[in-house]
Protein backbone atom coordinates (compact mmCIF):
# COMPACT_ATOMS: atom_id res chain seq x y z
CA UNK A 1 0.00 0.00 0.00
CA UNK A 2 1.33 3.41 -0.87
CA UNK A 3 1.97 5.55 2.16
CA UNK A 4 1.27 8.71 0.28
CA UNK A 5 -1.02 9.77 -2.49
CA UNK A 6 0.77 10.34 -5.75
CA UNK A 7 -2.32 10.54 -7.91
CA UNK A 8 -1.12 13.57 -9.85
CA UNK A 9 0.75 12.45 -12.96
CA UNK A 10 3.01 15.49 -12.90
CA UNK A 11 3.99 14.76 -9.32
CA UNK A 12 4.68 11.09 -10.01
CA UNK A 13 6.93 12.05 -12.91
CA UNK A 14 8.79 14.66 -10.88
CA UNK A 15 9.63 12.41 -7.93
CA UNK A 16 12.19 11.50 -6.75
CA UNK A 17 13.74 14.94 -6.85
CA UNK A 18 17.36 15.54 -7.69
CA UNK A 19 19.48 16.73 -4.79
CA UNK A 20 19.89 20.32 -6.09
CA UNK A 21 16.13 20.68 -6.63
CA UNK A 22 15.39 19.21 -3.21
CA UNK A 23 17.83 21.63 -1.60
CA UNK A 24 16.35 24.61 -3.50
CA UNK A 25 12.86 23.66 -2.30
CA UNK A 26 14.14 23.22 1.26
CA UNK A 27 15.77 26.62 1.03
CA UNK A 28 12.41 28.15 0.13
CA UNK A 29 10.48 26.13 2.72
CA UNK A 30 11.34 28.50 5.56
CA UNK A 31 10.86 31.87 3.91
CA UNK A 32 10.94 33.56 0.51
CA UNK A 33 14.48 33.94 -0.82
CA UNK A 34 16.13 35.63 -3.77
CA UNK A 35 18.57 33.94 -6.15
CA UNK A 36 21.85 34.64 -4.39
CA UNK A 37 20.44 33.71 -0.97
CA UNK A 38 19.25 30.37 -2.41
CA UNK A 39 22.74 29.67 -3.83
CA UNK A 40 24.37 30.31 -0.47
CA UNK A 41 21.71 28.41 1.47
CA UNK A 42 22.07 25.34 -0.74
CA UNK A 43 25.84 25.42 -0.24
CA UNK A 44 25.43 25.79 3.53
CA UNK A 45 22.79 23.05 3.85
CA UNK A 46 24.93 20.57 1.92
CA UNK A 47 28.10 21.57 3.81
CA UNK A 48 29.67 22.77 0.58
CA UNK A 49 29.00 19.51 -1.29
CA UNK A 50 26.42 21.02 -3.65
CA UNK A 51 27.57 24.31 -5.18
CA UNK A 52 25.16 25.56 -7.81
CA UNK A 53 26.14 27.87 -10.61
CA UNK A 54 23.82 30.72 -11.51
CA UNK A 55 22.91 29.00 -14.79
CA UNK A 56 21.95 25.78 -13.01
CA UNK A 57 19.96 27.62 -10.34
CA UNK A 58 17.89 29.61 -12.80
CA UNK A 59 17.29 26.54 -14.98
CA UNK A 60 15.85 24.80 -11.92
CA UNK A 61 13.85 27.88 -10.86
CA UNK A 62 12.43 28.13 -14.36
CA UNK A 63 11.18 24.55 -14.28
CA UNK A 64 9.78 24.92 -10.79
CA UNK A 65 7.95 28.09 -11.85
CA UNK A 66 6.58 26.37 -14.95
CA UNK A 67 5.37 23.42 -12.85
CA UNK A 68 3.82 25.82 -10.35
CA UNK A 69 5.91 24.55 -7.44
CA UNK A 70 7.26 28.01 -6.68
CA UNK A 71 6.11 31.54 -7.43
CA UNK A 72 7.59 35.00 -7.59
CA UNK A 73 7.15 36.88 -4.37
CA UNK A 74 6.74 40.64 -4.52
CA UNK A 75 8.64 42.37 -1.77
CA UNK A 76 8.36 46.03 -0.94
CA UNK A 77 11.28 48.18 -2.07
CA UNK A 78 13.03 45.33 -3.82
CA UNK A 79 16.19 46.49 -5.59
CA UNK A 80 16.31 45.97 -9.35
CA UNK A 81 17.37 42.44 -10.25
CA UNK A 82 16.54 41.01 -6.81
CA UNK A 83 13.46 38.88 -7.21
CA UNK A 84 12.33 36.67 -4.33
CA UNK A 85 10.70 33.26 -4.74
CA UNK A 86 8.55 31.21 -2.41
CA UNK A 87 6.90 27.78 -2.37
CA UNK A 88 3.34 27.46 -3.63
CA UNK A 89 0.94 25.21 -1.70
CA UNK A 90 1.49 22.60 -4.44
CA UNK A 91 5.25 22.90 -4.10
CA UNK A 92 5.02 22.47 -0.35
CA UNK A 93 2.79 19.42 -0.77
CA UNK A 94 5.21 17.85 -3.23
CA UNK A 95 8.17 18.58 -0.98
CA UNK A 96 6.32 16.84 1.84
CA UNK A 97 5.67 13.84 -0.44
CA UNK A 98 9.37 13.64 -1.22
CA UNK A 99 10.29 13.85 2.47
CA UNK A 100 7.78 11.06 3.25
CA UNK A 101 9.26 8.96 0.44
CA UNK A 102 12.76 9.46 1.82
CA UNK A 103 11.61 8.64 5.35
CA UNK A 104 10.08 5.42 4.11
CA UNK A 105 13.27 4.42 2.32
CA UNK A 106 15.39 5.31 5.35
CA UNK A 107 13.13 3.25 7.61
CA UNK A 108 13.27 0.29 5.26
CA UNK A 109 17.03 0.58 4.81
CA UNK A 110 17.62 0.79 8.55
CA UNK A 111 15.46 -2.29 9.10
CA UNK A 112 17.15 -4.32 6.38
CA UNK A 113 20.66 -3.42 7.46
CA UNK A 114 19.83 -4.17 11.12
CA UNK A 115 18.36 -7.57 10.18
CA UNK A 116 21.46 -8.45 8.17
CA UNK A 117 23.81 -7.44 11.01
CA UNK A 118 21.94 -9.45 13.66
Amino acid at each position, binding site marked *: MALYDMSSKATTESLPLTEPVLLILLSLAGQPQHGYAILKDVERMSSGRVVL*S*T*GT*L*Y*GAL*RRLLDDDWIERYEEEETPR*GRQAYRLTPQGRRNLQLEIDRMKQITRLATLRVATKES
Partner: protein
Amino acid sequence: MLAVYRKLLRLYPAEHRELFGEEMLAVLLQERSENADHRLMDRGRLVMRETAGLLMGALREHFRVTEIHEELSFATGRFAMRNGFRFPKSTILFMTLILGGALVAIKKGQDIASSVPDINPPLPVHIQPVHSILLGGMPLFFAFFYAAGLIGWAILFALRRSGVHRLADVSGEPK
Protein backbone atom coordinates in the same frame (compact mmCIF):
# COMPACT_ATOMS: atom_id res chain seq x y z
CA MET B 1 34.37 39.39 -16.59
CA LEU B 2 31.01 41.09 -16.50
CA ALA B 3 31.18 41.61 -20.26
CA VAL B 4 31.79 37.88 -20.75
CA TYR B 5 28.83 37.00 -18.53
CA ARG B 6 26.65 39.43 -20.48
CA LYS B 7 27.70 37.76 -23.74
CA LEU B 8 27.02 34.32 -22.30
CA LEU B 9 23.58 35.45 -21.15
CA ARG B 10 22.85 36.47 -24.72
CA LEU B 11 23.11 32.80 -25.68
CA TYR B 12 19.90 32.12 -23.76
CA PRO B 13 16.54 32.21 -25.58
CA ALA B 14 15.07 35.73 -25.61
CA GLU B 15 12.13 34.67 -23.47
CA HIS B 16 14.43 33.38 -20.72
CA ARG B 17 16.59 36.50 -20.91
CA GLU B 18 13.57 38.74 -20.47
CA LEU B 19 12.40 36.79 -17.44
CA PHE B 20 15.69 36.14 -15.67
CA GLY B 21 18.50 38.02 -17.45
CA GLU B 22 18.71 40.91 -15.03
CA GLU B 23 18.37 38.71 -11.97
CA MET B 24 21.05 36.35 -13.16
CA LEU B 25 23.41 39.23 -13.83
CA ALA B 26 22.68 40.63 -10.35
CA VAL B 27 23.50 37.24 -8.78
CA LEU B 28 26.73 36.99 -10.79
CA LEU B 29 27.70 40.51 -9.72
CA GLN B 30 26.98 39.83 -6.07
CA GLU B 31 28.91 36.59 -6.20
CA ARG B 32 31.86 38.33 -7.82
CA SER B 33 31.92 41.16 -5.28
CA GLU B 34 31.70 38.74 -2.35
CA ASN B 35 34.58 36.70 -3.72
CA ALA B 36 36.75 39.72 -4.60
CA ASP B 37 39.11 39.20 -1.65
CA HIS B 38 39.44 35.43 -2.15
CA ARG B 39 42.55 33.75 -3.56
CA LEU B 40 43.13 33.92 -7.30
CA MET B 41 42.64 30.14 -7.54
CA ASP B 42 39.21 30.33 -5.88
CA ARG B 43 38.15 33.20 -8.11
CA GLY B 44 39.33 31.29 -11.16
CA ARG B 45 37.30 28.27 -10.06
CA LEU B 46 34.24 30.48 -9.60
CA VAL B 47 34.60 31.96 -13.08
CA MET B 48 35.01 28.49 -14.59
CA ARG B 49 31.96 27.17 -12.75
CA GLU B 50 29.79 30.11 -13.72
CA THR B 51 30.92 30.06 -17.35
CA ALA B 52 30.25 26.33 -17.66
CA GLY B 53 26.92 26.77 -15.84
CA LEU B 54 25.81 29.53 -18.19
CA LEU B 55 26.83 27.59 -21.30
CA MET B 56 25.10 24.42 -20.16
CA GLY B 57 22.10 26.41 -18.95
CA ALA B 58 21.73 28.12 -22.33
CA LEU B 59 21.98 24.78 -24.09
CA ARG B 60 19.34 23.25 -21.82
CA GLU B 61 17.01 26.19 -22.31
CA HIS B 62 17.31 25.96 -26.10
CA PHE B 63 16.49 22.26 -25.98
CA ARG B 64 13.64 22.98 -23.61
CA VAL B 65 12.24 25.61 -25.96
CA THR B 66 12.57 23.18 -28.86
CA GLU B 67 10.81 20.47 -26.85
CA ILE B 68 7.93 22.82 -26.04
CA HIS B 69 7.62 23.84 -29.71
CA GLU B 70 7.63 20.19 -30.74
CA GLU B 71 4.94 19.39 -28.20
CA LEU B 72 2.87 22.31 -29.47
CA SER B 73 3.31 21.30 -33.09
CA PHE B 74 2.23 17.76 -32.27
CA ALA B 75 -0.78 19.13 -30.45
CA THR B 76 -1.81 21.38 -33.32
CA GLY B 77 -0.66 19.15 -36.15
CA ARG B 78 1.38 21.98 -37.66
CA PHE B 79 4.88 20.67 -38.15
CA ALA B 80 6.32 22.52 -41.12
CA MET B 81 5.06 26.02 -40.63
CA ARG B 82 4.67 27.35 -37.16
CA ASN B 83 4.26 30.84 -35.84
CA GLY B 84 7.36 32.43 -34.44
CA PHE B 85 9.61 29.77 -35.90
CA ARG B 86 13.26 30.49 -35.18
CA PHE B 87 16.54 28.68 -35.33
CA PRO B 88 18.98 30.39 -32.95
CA LYS B 89 22.35 31.37 -34.36
CA SER B 90 23.94 30.36 -31.08
CA THR B 91 23.26 26.76 -32.12
CA ILE B 92 26.29 27.05 -34.41
CA LEU B 93 28.43 27.94 -31.42
CA PHE B 94 27.09 24.98 -29.46
CA MET B 95 27.60 22.66 -32.41
CA THR B 96 31.19 23.85 -32.72
CA LEU B 97 31.77 23.38 -29.00
CA ILE B 98 30.31 19.87 -29.09
CA LEU B 99 32.38 18.96 -32.15
CA GLY B 100 35.51 20.33 -30.49
CA GLY B 101 34.78 18.36 -27.32
CA ALA B 102 34.18 15.16 -29.27
CA LEU B 103 37.43 15.56 -31.24
CA VAL B 104 39.44 16.24 -28.06
CA ALA B 105 37.89 13.15 -26.43
CA ILE B 106 38.76 11.03 -29.47
CA LYS B 107 42.35 12.33 -29.47
CA LYS B 108 42.67 11.55 -25.76
CA GLY B 109 41.30 8.07 -26.38
CA GLN B 110 43.83 7.48 -29.14
CA ASP B 111 46.67 8.71 -26.92
CA ILE B 112 45.61 6.37 -24.11
CA ALA B 113 45.25 3.47 -26.54
CA SER B 114 48.74 4.07 -27.96
CA SER B 115 50.31 4.39 -24.47
CA VAL B 116 49.03 0.97 -23.36
CA PRO B 117 51.42 -1.83 -24.44
CA ASP B 118 49.88 -4.40 -26.73
CA ILE B 119 49.91 -7.66 -24.75
CA ASN B 120 48.34 -9.76 -27.49
CA PRO B 121 50.76 -11.74 -29.64
CA PRO B 122 51.02 -10.49 -33.21
CA LEU B 123 48.75 -12.26 -35.63
CA PRO B 124 50.22 -13.84 -38.72
CA VAL B 125 47.71 -12.06 -40.90
CA HIS B 126 47.50 -8.35 -40.30
CA ILE B 127 44.00 -7.44 -39.21
CA GLN B 128 43.32 -3.90 -38.19
CA PRO B 129 41.85 -3.81 -34.67
CA VAL B 130 38.20 -2.84 -34.58
CA HIS B 131 38.73 -0.01 -32.08
CA SER B 132 41.27 1.71 -34.33
CA ILE B 133 38.85 1.55 -37.26
CA LEU B 134 36.14 3.07 -35.05
CA LEU B 135 38.43 5.76 -33.65
CA GLY B 136 39.67 6.62 -37.10
CA GLY B 137 36.16 6.86 -38.48
CA MET B 138 34.65 8.85 -35.65
CA PRO B 139 36.09 12.27 -36.56
CA LEU B 140 34.74 11.71 -40.06
CA PHE B 141 31.38 10.72 -38.56
CA PHE B 142 31.22 13.85 -36.40
CA ALA B 143 32.42 16.06 -39.24
CA PHE B 144 29.67 14.63 -41.44
CA PHE B 145 26.95 15.39 -38.90
CA TYR B 146 28.42 18.82 -38.25
CA ALA B 147 28.31 19.60 -41.99
CA ALA B 148 24.76 18.21 -42.22
CA GLY B 149 23.71 20.39 -39.28
CA LEU B 150 25.25 23.47 -40.86
CA ILE B 151 23.51 22.83 -44.17
CA GLY B 152 20.22 22.29 -42.33
CA TRP B 153 20.69 25.51 -40.44
CA ALA B 154 21.49 27.40 -43.65
CA ILE B 155 18.33 26.07 -45.31
CA LEU B 156 16.15 26.97 -42.35
CA PHE B 157 17.77 30.38 -42.10
CA ALA B 158 17.17 31.00 -45.81
CA LEU B 159 13.54 29.91 -45.45
CA ARG B 160 13.11 32.21 -42.53
CA ARG B 161 14.62 35.10 -44.46
CA SER B 162 12.34 34.39 -47.39
CA GLY B 163 9.34 34.61 -45.09
CA VAL B 164 8.02 31.12 -45.89
CA HIS B 165 7.35 30.45 -42.24
CA ARG B 166 4.96 33.40 -42.18
CA LEU B 167 2.65 31.42 -44.44
CA ALA B 168 1.48 29.85 -41.22
CA ASP B 169 -0.03 33.19 -40.30
CA VAL B 170 -2.07 33.39 -43.47
CA SER B 171 -5.70 32.91 -42.73
CA GLY B 172 -8.14 31.50 -45.29
CA GLU B 173 -10.91 33.71 -43.94
CA PRO B 174 -11.33 37.12 -45.55
CA LYS B 175 -10.81 39.95 -43.11
